[in-house]
């Protein structure tokens, strides 16, 4: 038997209590990793990088679900400082079953990949996309997921747009695939011209505009100019930098960061009490034993360290399990298109950073709940302990 073995056997002496405490902490840390990672995504701009700094986004002023006239593309393109304008629309697509939701955007292939150069596509596929009336491109991950092949005619259902004949199932030809800038991006891009001609609502509308500007410093000025142009029209707009637009989009969920922080705070306050109570109870039960160990010759600090080690192991071990399972859940959510559509999937770097902070937090928690019993152990006289 070693000192580590002794600590382990001590933890194992009350199996039910240890298991329940372990399970409680496991759930807490699983929640921490899952919710904590998502909270981070809501609190930072994970979409816009350097490229996004030179982009503005224009959408209908009062609701993102309202369309805006397509002619705005040409009008805004004329403004000083605007380099290129493209547009996107929310198609509400799915493949075969409504549960197989797809992030689908009808786009202008000629301009989309120039405004979003971080989405890489070969010249061959881009040409095919531009030239094919019912063309569609998708990320390789989506192509592999549904086992599509280039040249396939893929039926895409829409929960919003019917065709003029009333049919909600559209047919697009997969003409190629592209590489998104981030893992987990699953947007399927459709040929806008076909969508525009065939949809039952009639032509000439787009969902929102993405505007490439020449200088990021000009962003606020151009945004104000665009909004002013349409302020008295029937389709007023609001324009913001891409990062601000993303933030506003995420804000529609409510203050997620605050909510999740509140939940996590409650979780940790609870486990602090649970873990602290367990350690205190375990300590009270063993005062006489600690007195015996001191009598045998174990010194105060060594025993204090044992007590502290037990508390740290009791906290860190379930945290490791919770973190691993939590990370697995996040990966599973990320690989599910439908879930990922509504719940932003944190990048692996965020998940890893949350995982590391979880383990550190577990260690700190262990030290916190073990400190008082450990300190009491070092200060307790043998005579008092033996009479406890």
């Amino acid at each position, binding site marked *: *038997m*070693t*000192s580590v073995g*002794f600590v382990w*056997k*001590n933890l*194992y*002496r009350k199996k039910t209590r240890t298991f329940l405490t372990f399970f409680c902490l496991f759930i807490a840390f699983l929640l921490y990793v899952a919710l904590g990672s998502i909270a981070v995504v809501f609190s930072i701009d994970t979409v816009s990088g350097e490229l996004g700094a030179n982009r503005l986004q224009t959408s209908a002023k009062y609701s993102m679900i309202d369309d805006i006239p397509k002619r705005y593309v040409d009008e805004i393109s004329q403004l000083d400082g605007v380099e290129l304008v493209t547009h996107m629309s929310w198609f509400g697509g799915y493949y075969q079953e409504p549960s197989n939701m797809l992030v689908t955007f009808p786009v202008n292939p000629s301009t989309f990949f120039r405004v979003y150069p971080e989405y890489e596509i070969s010249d061959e596929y881009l040409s095919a996309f531009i030239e094919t009336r019912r063309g569609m491109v998708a990320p390789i991950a989506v192509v592999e997921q549904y086992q599509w092949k280039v040249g396939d005619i893929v039926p895409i259902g829409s929960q919003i747009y019917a065709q003029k004949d009333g049919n909600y199932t559209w047919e697009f030809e997969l003409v190629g695939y592209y590489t998104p800038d981030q893992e987990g991006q699953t947007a399927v891009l459709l040929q806008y011209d076909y969508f525009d001609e065939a949809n039952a609502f009639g032509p000439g509308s787009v969902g929102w505009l993405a505007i490439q500007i020449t200088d990021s410093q000009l962003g606020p000025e151009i945004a104000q100019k665009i909004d002013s142009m349409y302020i008295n029209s029937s389709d007023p707009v609001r324009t913001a930098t891409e990062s601000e637009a993303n933030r506003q989009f995420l804000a529609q969920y409510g203050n997620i960061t605050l909510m999740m922080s509140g939940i996590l705070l409650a979780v940790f306050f609870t486990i602090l009490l649970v873990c602290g109570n367990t350690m205190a109870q375990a300590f009270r039960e063993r005062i*006489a*034993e600690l007195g*015996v*160990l*001191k*009598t*045998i*010759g*174990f*010194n*105060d*600090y060594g025993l204090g360290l044992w007590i502290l080690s037990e508390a740290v192991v009791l906290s860190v071990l379930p945290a490791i399990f919770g973190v691993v399972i939590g990370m697995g859940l996040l990966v599973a959510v990320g690989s599910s298109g439908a879930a990922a559509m509504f719940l932003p999937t944190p990048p692996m770097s965020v998940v890893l950073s949350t995982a590391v902070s979880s383990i550190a937090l577990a260690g700190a928690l262990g030290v916190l709940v073990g400190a008082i019993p450990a300190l009491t152990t070092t200060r307790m*006289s*043998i*005579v008092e302990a*033996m009479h406890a």
Partner: protein
Amino acid sequence: MAFIELTNVVKNYEKGSEVVHVLQDLNLSLHEGDFLALMGPSGSGKSTLLNLIGGIDQPTAGSVVVDGANLDNMSGSQLAKWRSATIGFVFQFYNLLPFLTAERNVELPLLLTNLRGSQRKENALTALRTVSLEDRAKHKPGELSGGQQQRVAIARAIVADPKVLVCDEPTGDLDRQSAQEILALLETLNEQFGKTIIMVTHDPLAAEHAKTVLHLDKGVLVESEQAEVSA
């Protein structure tokens, strides 16, 4: 100089504002290999005296010297180290750790040594063999009788080969037959292994096994048989 020498020892405890005088100007000398039985009514200071000799408490005044070590000047850590090397403790209620097997319980004091795991295990089994319990090495205390538990406790006390055994009513919780077995074992350890034993007991029959019997009353040694004692 005697093996164990207590000189003008005073031990007081503070209970709130009241000072309780437990031992008063006590002197005691014991030779190596002695087997001393300490008797006396409850509250007479027997256990306190045992604690002072065992180095788990320190006197208010006077000096305690055991095997040449003056315990008065030692820090807590020094005392702990000294105890682990010099003293073996046997308690009335055995005080074994319930979640460890007999072998692991006996091995505990050896965790404080530099012995390797295999050597610690071998020593623990040797100690269990000495108390005739090698076949119960894998049993936990709850699976053993009171007498067997006390024998495991004695094995734990002797496993590090201390010179002194301090026994606080070692037969107080046992039936007559088990008590006799334990006392016979202590006698063997005293006579064959040369251990110096100081045993607190209420039982005159148990005291008969000792070479020396001392009586304490209200912190003062009132009677002596065979030992060099002055109070």
